[in-house]
């Protein structure tokens, strides 16, 4: 009953991408031959600049850019894509070497790794296992190839970024099947001279790790297709004030490979409006963020819903006077989410069950995303979120999560990281579901705690090869039958393909 709009977001984003690329290209074409010198025929300078010159003209001076260079792409895409790709505590890859080839910046890499897990299927240490996997250790050979690339067109106003990351996991012994995980995305942003910008993109993602899903099947495969489009104004074109505006639409369509996990199949759409105003030291801004989210869930057992959220916060960076390098940057905000869900019932066997009777929910929304640059060697990253999220078990779950990471440059070749997190989940709904007429078996879904600790190192063996090693442990505290603990170790080698043949650098004076 809820299959509408599954690919609508992707198509819409694609159409937008094409639509706004056209005027960008048209603008280029329209400027040709604009300059005519006295006493001479029409100018061909614009035509020549496309064929002779190899640079792109600088954009207007902007203290802040819409996108934070290639490394923003790297951050979004590769280096923190640790939803299984990067393990807790691992030191991420960062783009390194010669990156510009023609008009493209590109960062291709290969990675070979071996990973050992103590409890691959995340089975409980006590009580009855939910199926016959048991606590199974597992070796996995990780074959990974990826690249990110971007380019600037239309004099630097149109930026297009592309990323792909493909991981083939080969497992040995009494093993789950080999799996292929993938992420690909394309994003584009066009900035007009007025300060207005339009950003859009699409992503495709597929995962197979058993994390955070019940043990209902051997196939944990799931995928999502996302699209977004955002229109922003870095200058206030309407009132001439210092306000900045941003409106956007994000859509995501999530689908499980196995029908056992079909409860997660859904389409989510979020509209947002953000307005900000400069605040402290001109490096911070106060903002108001309004969101409207529509959840269209395929499962009869999970209700459709919609929610409105309002947040007030501050973002930016604050240099600290005490030291040359010390600064805090990020955002903090506080607000609420108010949701209304349908009140569906569904049948299972001879029973009529209530999906979740908690139709209305208004919950606090807190966010802190802060980085502290302690010194030229060390940084600390803190994330705290209290919000309402999608839940398998009922209409929603209220999640508290805190992440803390510390990264340190031991030497010019050796970088280390230690990361920890704690998460508390409070789902709505009952387990088992309430029935009509009600029975006494049903009770509120259980809360769950999850915590993890990881430590890792990355060693630059030479300009084109890194060695990474990490270890982590995760612990889940549910009621006794669902708690588990999993130890993990990873050893990998990454090849930076664009640094294989480094060019001689400009001589540096002593």
């Amino acid at each position, binding site marked *: 009953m809820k299959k509408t709009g599954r690919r609508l977001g992707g198509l819409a984003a694609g159409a937008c991408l094409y639509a706004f690329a056209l005027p960008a290209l048209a603008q280029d074409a329209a*400027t040709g031959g604009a*300059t005519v*010198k*006295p006493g001479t*025929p029409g100018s061909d300078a614009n035509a020549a600049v496309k*064929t*002779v*010159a190899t*640079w792109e003209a*600088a*954009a207007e*001076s902007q203290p*802040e*850019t819409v996108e934070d*260079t290639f*490394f*923003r792409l790297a951050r979004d895409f590769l280096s*923190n*894509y*640790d*939803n299984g790709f990067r393990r807790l505590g691992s030191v991420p890859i960062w783009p*390194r070497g010669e990156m510009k080839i023609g008009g493209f910046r590109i960062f291709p890499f290969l990675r070979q790794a071996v990973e050992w897990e103590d409890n691959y299927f995340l089975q409980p240490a006590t009580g009855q296992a939910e199926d016959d996997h048991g606590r199974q250790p597992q070796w996995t050979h990780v074959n990974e190839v990826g690249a990110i690339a971007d380019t*600037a067109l239309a*004099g*630097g106003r149109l930026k297009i970024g592309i990323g792909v990351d493909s991981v083939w996991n080969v497992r040995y012994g009494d093993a789950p099947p080999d799996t292929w995980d993938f992420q690909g*995305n394309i994003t584009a942003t066009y900035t007009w001279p007025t300060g207005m910008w339009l950003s859009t*993109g699409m*992503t495709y*993602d597929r*995962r197979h790790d058993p*994390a*955070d*899903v019940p043990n209902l099947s051997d196939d944990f495969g799931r995928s*999502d297709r*996302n699209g977004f489009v955002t229109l922003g104004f870095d200058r206030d074109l309407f009132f001439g004030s210092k306000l900045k505006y941003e409106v*956007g639409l*994000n859509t*995501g369509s*999530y689908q499980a490979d196995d029908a056992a996990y079909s409860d997660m199949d859904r389409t989510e759409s979020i509209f*947002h409006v953000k307005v900000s105003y400069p605040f402290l030291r001109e490096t911070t801004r106060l903002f108001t*963020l309004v969101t409207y989210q529509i959840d269209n869930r395929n499962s009869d057992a999970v209700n459709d819903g919609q929610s409105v959220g309002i947040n007030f916060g501050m973002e930016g960076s604050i240099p600290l006077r005490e030291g040359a390098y010390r600064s805090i940057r990020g*955002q903090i905000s506080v607000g609420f989410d108010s949701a209304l869900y349908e009140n569906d019932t569904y049948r299972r066997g001879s029973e009529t069950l209530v999906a979740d009777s908690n139709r209305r929910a208004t919950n606090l929304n807190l966010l802190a*995303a*802060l*980085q502290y*640059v302690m010194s*030229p*060697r060390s940084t600390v990253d803190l994330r705290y979120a209290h919000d309402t999220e*999608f*839940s*398998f078990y009922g209409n929603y779950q209220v999640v508290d999560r805190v*992440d803390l*990471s510390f990264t340190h*440059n031991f030497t*010019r070749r050796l970088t280390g990281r230690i990361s920890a997190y704690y998460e508390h989940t409070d789902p709505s709904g009952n387990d088992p579901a309430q029935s009509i007429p009600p029975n006494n078996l049903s009770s509120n879904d259980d809360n769950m705690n999850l915590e*993890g600790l990881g430590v890792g190192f990355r060693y630059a063996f030479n*300009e084109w090869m890194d060695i990474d090693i990490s270890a982590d442990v995760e612990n889940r505290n549910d009621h006794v039958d669902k708690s588990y603990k999993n130890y993990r170790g990873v050893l990998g080698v990454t090849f930076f393909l664009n640094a294989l043949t480094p060019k001689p650098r*400009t001589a*540096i*004076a002593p």
Partner: protein
Amino acid sequence: MRTVLRRMLVAATSLALVAAAATAGAVDVAKARDATGSSSITRDGKTSPVGSSTQFQEGDIVRVPSDGRLTIEFGDGASLAMVGPAGLRFGPMNPLGRRVVLGSGVITEATVLGIAVEIQAPNPYDCSLVLQNARAFARVNPGESVQFQKLEGVYAKAYLGNTPTDLGQSPWLLNARDGSVAMGTPPQGRETGPRGALKETALANDGVRVIVGGRAIVFMPAKSFKRETTARGGYLLCFNGADGEWGTVDAGRENTFFLASGNCVEFDANGDVIRFDGVMHIYEPLFDSVYTHDPIENAIDASPSYSKKR
């Protein structure tokens, strides 16, 4: 007598006009001379080497490599001597005038006789050098500067927009970064650039901010950084600190580059990093508007909840 002279003058003028009209539609060509290195010509999308018999026509693009030289000679003996690396595109060439676009590089000597030659810098600079019966020098450093200089002769003007400036012996220099024009000695060492070629803003604690391609770049401690502008208008920062000392470079809102002694980070003219050999501490994005909800912009969370984001 006066009537005869008047008639002769009218006749001569008419003949001159007829001759001019007859030759106005003629198409001129240019030839290659004294070529060294492996210069190339691109015509209709096809690239081939420049040889002694190569003739250039409107629309051709000629590229001179970094170890090469090439002299372009026109039918009336006018010539353009290029030193690589350089790129030049031919515009219209007829008896009324000739035009070339110097995309980048140097014309060490442009010798122009009776037919005027316009040497254009490409957009967005919107400037050109117009010569007749003169010798001159021209250099285009994309993203950085345009330089014109008359060596000798009668007519040599630099046009910026539609405004002409008579050139003397001093160079005419356009700063491409801020659009300012100066007459006088240009900065030396253009290929690697002098220290301070970009405007530097001093910050507290020995920090310095520069703007490259509209992007703010902050580095510290400035005393330990060697900074150079590159040939393509970019910016190279190399840290020369003591052993065990680190420098930082901030570009954009979220990116801090850590550099040990000898490490460098290079930006292109847009302010984008194109080379880096230091260390970064990469975390998740800080400034996403829609932060924790699914979906988020870059799909880093495919799991059913936020709980697997780290």
